[in-house]
């Protein structure tokens, strides 16, 4: 069962890295559910859970090239989640006491998420004007990469680069809050 979960997630992530956006969304949603279950045991409230889940998702996204396509995906996700959770609780002045020894035993949390207290508008303030235009176009206005490129008069590659850098800046901003 656990092996099957891992194989399914690994398949989704492989497809995502080849450019399949729908597979990537499914992968991230499945991982988010597991993260939520893991973090909830220690967090004080729902917003705090969601903050840590989002920081971890961003970290997974920005570091996805450190996953090797032939290895299990859950231990890798777990290692990133552990690092980000320890960091997040330390910033809040608490020790991380989550039992993170066996993430593979953690089942996805069935409950719905609580919105994070963070506001995307504040996160966007950290970006350069060009990055902000690209991230806003993709995330707030929901345009595709190709549409964003034509609206902003950029190449697809330049949009991807600005988007990636913008996400990295948001991740740093999250980490500093």
């Amino acid at each position, binding site marked *: 069962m656990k092996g099957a979960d891992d194989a399914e997630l690994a398949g989704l992530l492989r497809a995502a890295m080849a450019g399949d956006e729908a597979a990537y969304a499914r992968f991230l949603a499945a991982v988010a559910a597991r993260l939520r279950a893991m973090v909830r045991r220690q967090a004080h409230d729902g917003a705090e859970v969601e903050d840590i889940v989002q920081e971890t998702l961003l970290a997974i996204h920005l570091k996805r090239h450190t996953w090797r396509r032939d290895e299990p995906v859950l231990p890798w996700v777990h*290692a990133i989640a552990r690092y980000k959770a320890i960091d997040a609780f330390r910033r809040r002045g608490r020790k991380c006491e989550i039992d993170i020894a066996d993430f593979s035993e953690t089942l996805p949390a069935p409950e719905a998420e609580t919105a994070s207290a963070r506001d995307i508008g504040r996160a966007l303030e950290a970006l350069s004007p060009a990055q902000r235009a690209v991230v806003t176009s993709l995330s707030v206005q929901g345009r595709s990469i190709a549409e964003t490129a034509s609206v902003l008069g950029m190449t697809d590659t330049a949009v991807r680069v600005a*988007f990636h850098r913008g996400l990295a800046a948001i991740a740093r901003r999250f980490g500093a809050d």
Partner: protein
Amino acid sequence: MKTDDLIATLARDARAAGPSVSAALAAAVAAAFVLAAVVFFGVLGPRPDIAAALATIRFDLKFVVAAALALTALACLAALSRPQAQSGRLGLLALAPAMLALAVAGEMAAVPQAEWQARWIGTNNVLCLLCIPTIGIAPLAVLLAAMRRGAPTRPRLSGAVAGLLAGGIAALFYAAHCTDDSPLFVATWYSLAVMILAGIGALVGGRVLRW
């Protein structure tokens, strides 16, 4: 912000781009050798009697130990660049010190006690402490830059190991200039010089390798 919105945003950027961490590290090691060579040949150059020195076991041993340090540090660094790094490989780092310890024991058996101090202090110890960090600092910078592409969950340790690798590379070059070949000298002054780089690596790594 809702997590679903974040997921939808991230999904737009699904395709993975850029080199793998192993490729970035390999490129950094190549660049580190070039940078070390530039400083070495620009400032020091090999000792004049290098052809004769190559026939002596003490001179050659310096390169063997430096290469062992560089290779074991690289193996550890590659492991540390990934989030799920296990500490198992760190034991490899004992190889170069163990080789040095054996060489020191051999030297003390082969050389009369009256000569130990002169061989231990040598003639180049200050130069050694200055040159290895000087040769190794640019390699350390490129190695740390490559590690930033990775996901090291132990930033300080990763920085220190990057310092050991930079130190091993620097020692490989500096050894060709240095005329002190006794293992007593190498175990003391080379090690101290490499530890300087490891210390710098730990300090800087603790800051720049967080993510």
